[in-house]
């Protein structure tokens, strides 16, 4: 395999691994900030115990998210030097802004939050976790604007052998990036909601700390329901944007081969890539895709056959990932709706079957997040910057295949080891449950 293919695999491996930790951070930081705020407002110690318990899991998860994030920044230069040189005038800015505006805030105040229980007042302590939550969400915004630019480049001209920025505001207000950010942020919230619901369910099944976990569960259920519904709404807006700006990706997502007006959605569909058609097309909802894509039942959708072969993305992974993601998204809405309902009925701890289902549902939003990125990134191929630069022209020319093979092997080994340890620790602390005695902590806080 050559450096190009290996670099692509390495980027996928390191990015997807990094993205196991990011979505939970996005959502759970907000939930913990809410818990601690409730503690400061009410003085109810159960909120503090919740803050501490979920905070511990947050931190174990956070550590790997941070360190694997550095890889992403280094890798643009290491493996994608041509890309970095060609679009650095635009793409470098958000990365630098992310570090200056978001990472400093996040890293400094997470330090204050972890070690500052007896150093600052309760109020300042709660504010510091809000700052962490704001910073992580802000870094998401900046990085999705950067990715949004790769998907739908705006505000630039080609000159001096590269792309140069001429309109920063256009990059910042790129609807593609903004909608995608909303979609991603709420997907992260969904991950966090199902994480908290799932672990709460595990403890409720064992009758541990019923009051505390019922309260956690209810908070997560409401958070999850709102997030899951908004994910779907923003997902719909996002697919409109994709249909408008990236017809090849859209056609691959829906496996549409022929250009037609008033395209219907087949609930059962099996693409045959070599024959350039669909083997199975069953249960058609008429005009549905035209409706979703352009909000017009008769709108024309471009088929893959009308896109040059070398500008089509791989159809099967994009199609399958998209379908699975949408299916999972539907499940999240239904499950969180039921969770809210049962939670308000008051006897969630006796719904054993549903609680078991939620324990096993913890990985599902993670999978949906990863699949969403497969749609986004594989669907953009063969372009690295849509319509501007091909992935094959973006790779470092001064790095050999052997170097990348070695680094890929290194990353795989290191990440697998760290991933196993991290998940082991998450399990360990999730099962252990909250600390029962927090009098020492409250005493310390009193001294601050």
């Amino acid at each position, binding site marked *: 395999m050559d450096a190009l293919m290996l670099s692509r695999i390495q980027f996928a491996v390191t990015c997807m691994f990094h993205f196991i930790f990011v979505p939970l951070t996005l959502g759970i930081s907000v939930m913990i900030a809410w818990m601690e705020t409730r503690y400061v407002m009410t003085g109810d110690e159960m909120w503090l115990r919740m803050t501490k318990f979920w905070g511990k899991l947050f931190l174990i998860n956070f*550590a*790997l998210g*941070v*360190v694997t*994030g*550095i*890889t992403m*920044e*280094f890798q*643009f*230069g*290491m*493996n994608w*030097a041509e*890309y*970095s*040189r060609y*679009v*650095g*005038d635009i793409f*470098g*800015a958000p*990365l*630098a*802004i992310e*570090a*200056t505006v978001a*990472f*400093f*805030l996040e*890293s*400094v*105040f*997470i*330090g*204050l939050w*972890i*070690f*500052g*229980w007896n150093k*600052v007042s309760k109020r300042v302590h709660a504010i510091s976790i809000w700052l962490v939550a704001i910073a992580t969400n802000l870094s998401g915004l900046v990085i999705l604007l950067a990715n949004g630019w790769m998907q739908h480049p705006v505000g630039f001209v080609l000159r*001096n052998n*590269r792309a*140069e*920025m*001429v309109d920063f505001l256009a990059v910042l207000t790129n609807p593609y990036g903004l909608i995608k950010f909303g979609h991603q942020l709420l997907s992260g919230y969904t991950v966090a909601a199902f994480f908290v619901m799932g672990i709460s369910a595990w403890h409720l099944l064992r009758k541990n700390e019923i009051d505390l976990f019922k309260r956690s569960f209810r908070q997560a259920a409401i958070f999850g329901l709102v997030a899951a519904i908004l994910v779907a709404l923003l997902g719909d807006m996002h697919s409109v944007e994709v249909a408008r700006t990236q017809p090849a990706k859209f056609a691959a997502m829906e496996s549409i081969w022929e250009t037609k007006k008033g395209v219907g959605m087949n609930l059962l569909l099996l693409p045959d890539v070599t024959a350039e058609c669909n083997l199975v097309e069953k249960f058609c909802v008429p005009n549905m895709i035209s409706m979703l894509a352009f909000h017009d039942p008769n709108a024309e959708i471009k088929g893959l056959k009308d896109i040059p072969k070398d500008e089509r993305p791989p159809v099967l992974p994009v199609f399958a990932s998209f379908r699975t993601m949408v299916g999972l998204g539907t499940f999240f809405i239904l499950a969180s709706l039921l969770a809210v309902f049962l939670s308000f009925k008051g006897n969630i701890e006796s719904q054993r079957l549903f609680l078991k289902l939620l324990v096993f549902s913890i990985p599902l939003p993670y999978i949906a997040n990863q699949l969403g990125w497969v749609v986004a990134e594989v669907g953009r191929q063969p372009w690295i910057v849509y319509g501007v630069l091909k992935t094959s022209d973006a790779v*470092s020319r*001064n*790095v050999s295949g052997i*170097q990348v093979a*070695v*680094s890929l092997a290194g990353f795989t080994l*290191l990440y697998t080891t*760290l991933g196993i*340890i991290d998940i082991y*620790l998450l399990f*360990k*602390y999730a099962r252990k449950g909250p600390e029962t005695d927090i009098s*020492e*902590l409250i005493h310390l806080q009193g001294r601050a």
Partner: protein
Amino acid sequence: MELSIFQITWFILWGFLWGVYFMLDGFVLGLGFMSRFLAKNDTEKRVLINTVGPVWDGNEVWLVTAGGATFAAFPTTYALMFSNLYTALLLLLFALIVRGVSFEFRGKIDGAPWRAGWDTAITISSFLPALLFGVAFGNIFEGIPMRNDFTTATFAYEGGLLSLLNPYGLLTGVLFVMLFAVHGSLYAAIKTTGELSDRAAAMASRLWLPLLVVAVAFLAYTYPATKLYDNYLNSAALLAIPLIAVGSLLMLKVSASTGRLHRAFTFSCLTIAFVCFTGVAGLFPNLIPSSIDAGSNLTIYNSSSSLYTLRIMTVVALIFVPIVIAYKIWVYRIFRSRITNEDVLGDSEAY
């Protein structure tokens, strides 16, 4: 004309970011690989790790910012620096990843083998970046074997895997290790109490002379190995920078031997920052020179972003860097007290 003002501004900012990074992460790295020699038992090790607990992540962000600033302001340099130095940066990356999780994971499970394992990880993953940063910057100072054509945007690296490990690169690596060892020991001395603090202070004093020898060797070898002194010969005012570096190194010893450890640590900060600034000022207007062809040098003129981008980034930096510095100082002040054994034993959040 206007463009060159911004290019120079960003060159200064670039040097500033690296200097601050080395100054701040320098003591975390130094303390990391010195803790093996400074701590006599597990509690003392935990005390040491907890002295950097609240700040190590924030300090590392200066590296991310320095990298991001290189990307945003000098994308061609960013691209070629990171790809030409691929293997060195890979090792650096692995080490930084391991170091970060080691702090976090070490205390999460009770058990001697678990902790011993992470202790070894902390030693190696702190030592390696110190050495590698030095080797990388030594090579940047002397130039790396690249042949670049900026009009056609074709770039070639003619070095091999091991070409970074040349004598000058290695000497700079040793210099960084020694600087960080003293820096980390001094930090340990001012952040702990009793015997541990005394031991760390004694270690810093003992390492000072070897550091001085390496520093003198570095300054001497820099003359034949690099072109860094050209700028100093052309404008004598610049000599203030290396003079502050050397002066601080001497004052460090004077302060340490009279027991004024906070002052010694301050001078250690200045030494590291100004060693970095000395190298960077000598490079100007190059960011990375080529060792084989002067026309291939990566300069602030041939590798910068457009005026438009530099302007925006300048506004961002002018607004946010002072804010960052302000809240960082505030948080450092909150954590200004020394860490004691009781602190780590009584706190469930401690590392």
